[in-house]
């Protein structure tokens, strides 16, 4: 605590960028907008890097993690509940911040090229900076409420960026969909916070874990409920079953946004939150099981949909959902460091996949349909080679980044008894599908002959190619640190993984199996999309039902539409609008208005405009007051019955 890391600068710098570009952006020259937009995340990254260098022991620093910075003013002080605006930098948040600000900065640079000719250039960058602000608040949060501020904030930034092209109805709808579906998850987060306050009297993460550690009686029961509520929140933000539906639609936003928010950083907030509150999950085996099942189911489910999508960004969107499922699976087997490890490597290669896809889309004039691409390998060499690195990374080939993290998750799952074997098998199957669909995308976009020969593809500017190269390097090398070192670094934050029955031998075998499966996926894709390109259409024709099911994403959107959206719409239209709004509220308003009008109609005669009548009323009023004050009413009233009785006596 002696050294000042100035954690508050990390969120505040992007916020300053947001304010500057958001308020003045339209009037500032474009070069200045770019400078501000890039300087803010770069400076934030610098602050994080400064902290990281100290933490990794590269430079000597008096600060030892965790570093806690609290705003001197209390935030909420109500009864037993004290909430401060506090930031915590520990190993976990440090790793996340490196990803968020680092990848964030790279994507900012890419955006300079990608959004170059867009009219909303300054608006775009102000939103992007706003996102970084909220995301770093979320990551740095020392208690659940500060995290919730960031949590809601990234939801807002995500909404703004998905609906960036708000003139397009589909984009505006997608923004709303993301926002509303996220609200459902947020209810879970909110309830979890209420329960935390009610049962622990605090929202601070460290205090919760201390209290849980002190009393072994915290097991299951209310802890399970809290953990499940948190998981609901995480499922909303991280696009897990059953709340994943917003993420594919979020592809309506500009492609760098998909890379930054809907692949690399924001959607991982759920995983991060589970890792952050892992003590709660550790005390509830049931909740852990739910997390694992949701993760595995989502991984497989989304991967099957990704098999047949033709929009390049949608393939990647479903792939993101699937990979997030992997991370939750890892959380579910309490391998939090493996989950975070995959989170980091995934952010490298998925950001790269999206940026490369953006480069492709940019190059061929906004076309996103894979069926109209092809043969881009020669025209876009940098994009092709960087994309290839990402493809091999996500497919899990040695020695690319994805291999190490995916392997770590599968290995961790395999060690968890019989149910763990099932998870492992699902993970393996997903790996096969992943490898297949990503190579399918690779073949369809880059190999063969161009299917739109009249489109003149051109390589992107260097502001876009540079980030691609950086991310490609990270996708190749990012995993070399290995889970052992990564896990031991994270251990103070998320606890060490207690793996029983594991051995180097077993891990090696599992790795070989995983790579073999990935290779198999590649071979199938190679066969179907290079050697026998007619085959996929034949298969689709042979299995019309299954193909239709996949192309239409299992009709989940339609199912939700029929079971949730339509009844809700009908309820609000017929009950809320006609009965509550028009009937009760409107009726009350009309009644009040009617009374006022009626009273006014009578009383208006008083206001004759005749000065002397006013004066007469005034004099009469004064006389009445005088009468009231001067006449001794008590005695007068007391004598009245006596007179009456006296009369009666006659």
């Amino acid at each position: 605590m002696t050294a000042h890391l100035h954690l508050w600068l990390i969120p505040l710098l992007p916020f300053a960028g947001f304010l500057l570009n958001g308020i003045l952006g339209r009037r500032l020259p474009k070069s200045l907008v770019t400078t501000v937009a890039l300087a803010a995340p770069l400076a934030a990254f610098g602050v994080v890097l400064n902290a990281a260098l100290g933490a990794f022991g590269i430079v000597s620093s008096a600060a030892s993690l965790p570093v806690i910075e609290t705003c001197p003013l209390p935030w909420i002080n109500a009864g037993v509940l004290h909430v401060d605006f506090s930031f915590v930098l520990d190993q976990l948040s440090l790793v996340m911040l490196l990803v968020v600000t680092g990848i964030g900065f790279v994507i900012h640079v890419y955006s300079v090229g990608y959004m170059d000719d867009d009219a909303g250039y300054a608006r775009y960058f102000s939103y992007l900076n706003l996102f970084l602000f909220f995301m770093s608040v979320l990551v740095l949060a020392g208690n659940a409420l500060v995290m919730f501020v960031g949590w809601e904030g990234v939801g807002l930034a995500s909404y703004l960026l998905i609906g960036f092209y708000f003139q397009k109805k589909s984009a505006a709808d997608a923004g709303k969909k993301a926002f509303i579906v996220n609200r459902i998850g947020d209810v879970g987060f909110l309830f979890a916070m209420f329960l935390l306050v009610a049962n622990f009297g605090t929202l601070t993460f460290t205090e919760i874990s201390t209290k849980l550690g002190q009393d072994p009686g915290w097991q299951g029961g209310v802890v399970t409920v809290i953990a499940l509520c948190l998981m609901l929140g995480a499922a909303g933000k991280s696009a897990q079953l059953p709340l994943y539906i917003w993420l594919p639609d979020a592809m309506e936003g500009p492609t760098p946004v998909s890379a930054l928010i809907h692949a690399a950083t924001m959607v991982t907030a759920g995983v991060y939150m589970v890792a952050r509150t892992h003590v709660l999950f550790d005390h509830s085996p049931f909740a852990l099981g739910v997390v694992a099942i949701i993760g595995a189911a989502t991984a497989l489910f989304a991967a099957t949909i990704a098999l047949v999508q033709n929009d390049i960004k949608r393939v990647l969107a479903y792939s993101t959902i699937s990979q997030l499922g992997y991370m939750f699976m890892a959380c579910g087997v309490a391998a939090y460091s493996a989950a975070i490890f995959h989170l980091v490597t995934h952010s490298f290669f998925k950001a790269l996949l999206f940026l490369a896809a953006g480069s492709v889309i940019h190059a061929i004039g906004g076309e996103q349909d894979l069926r109209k691409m092809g043969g881009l390998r020669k025209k876009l060499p940098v994009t092709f080679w960087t994309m290839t690195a990402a493809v091999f990374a996500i497919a899990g080939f040695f020695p690319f980044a994805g291999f190490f993290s995916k392997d770590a998750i599968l290995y961790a799952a395999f060690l968890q008894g019989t149910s763990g074997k099932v998870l492992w098998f699902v993970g393996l199957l997903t790996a096969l599908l992943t490898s297949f669909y990503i190579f399918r995308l690779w073949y369809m976009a880059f190999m063969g002959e161009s299917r739109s020969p009249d489109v003149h593809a051109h390589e992107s500017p260097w502001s876009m190619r540079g980030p691609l190269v950086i991310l490609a390097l990270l996708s190749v090398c990012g995993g070399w640190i290995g889970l052992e070192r990564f896990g031991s670094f994270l251990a103070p934050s998320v606890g060490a993984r207690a793996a029983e029955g594991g051995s180097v031998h077993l891990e090696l075998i599992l790795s070989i199996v995983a790579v073999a499966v990935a290779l198999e996926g590649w071979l199938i894709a190679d066969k179907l999309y290079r050697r026998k390109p007619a085959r996929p259409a034949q298969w689709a024709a042979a299995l019309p039902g299954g193909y239709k099911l996949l192309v239409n994403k299992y009709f989940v959107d339609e199912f939700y539409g029929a079971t949730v959206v339509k009844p809700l719409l009908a309820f609000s239209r017929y009950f809320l609008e006609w009965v509550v709004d028009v009937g009760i509220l409107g009726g009350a308003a009309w009644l009040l208005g009617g009374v006022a009008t009626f009273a006014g109609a009578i009383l208006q005669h008083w206001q004759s405009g005749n000065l002397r009548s006013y004066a007469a009323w005034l004099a009469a009023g004064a006389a009445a007051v005088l009468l009231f004050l001067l006449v001794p009413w008590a005695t007068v009233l007391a004598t009245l019955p006596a007179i009456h009785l006296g009369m009666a006596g006659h």
Partner: protein
Amino acid sequence: MNSLFSQEVPLSWYLLLSAALFSLGIVGFLIKRNLITMFMSIELMLNGVNLSFVTFAHQWHAVKGQIFVFFVMVVAAAEAAVGLAIIIAIFRTRATLAVDRVDLMKL
């Protein structure tokens, strides 16, 4: 003769005179139509009140009541200046001083 003038005038006589002046003012204000007459009625009411102030000041040997009277006179003088100006303005714009016909804010 001597006794008649050397005797104190009783308090109630002053008060009755004051009430009479005030009532005359009210009645004049209510029944008269001419703005200037109404204005004079107001002055009459003020003076009625002034009289009772002075009476009580004399009665209780307190100077406060007389100070109040000065205040009332100052305000009345100011009011007379403003009021007459308004009356002139009304007469110029409407060519009448009948208060019944001055019952709209706009011309």
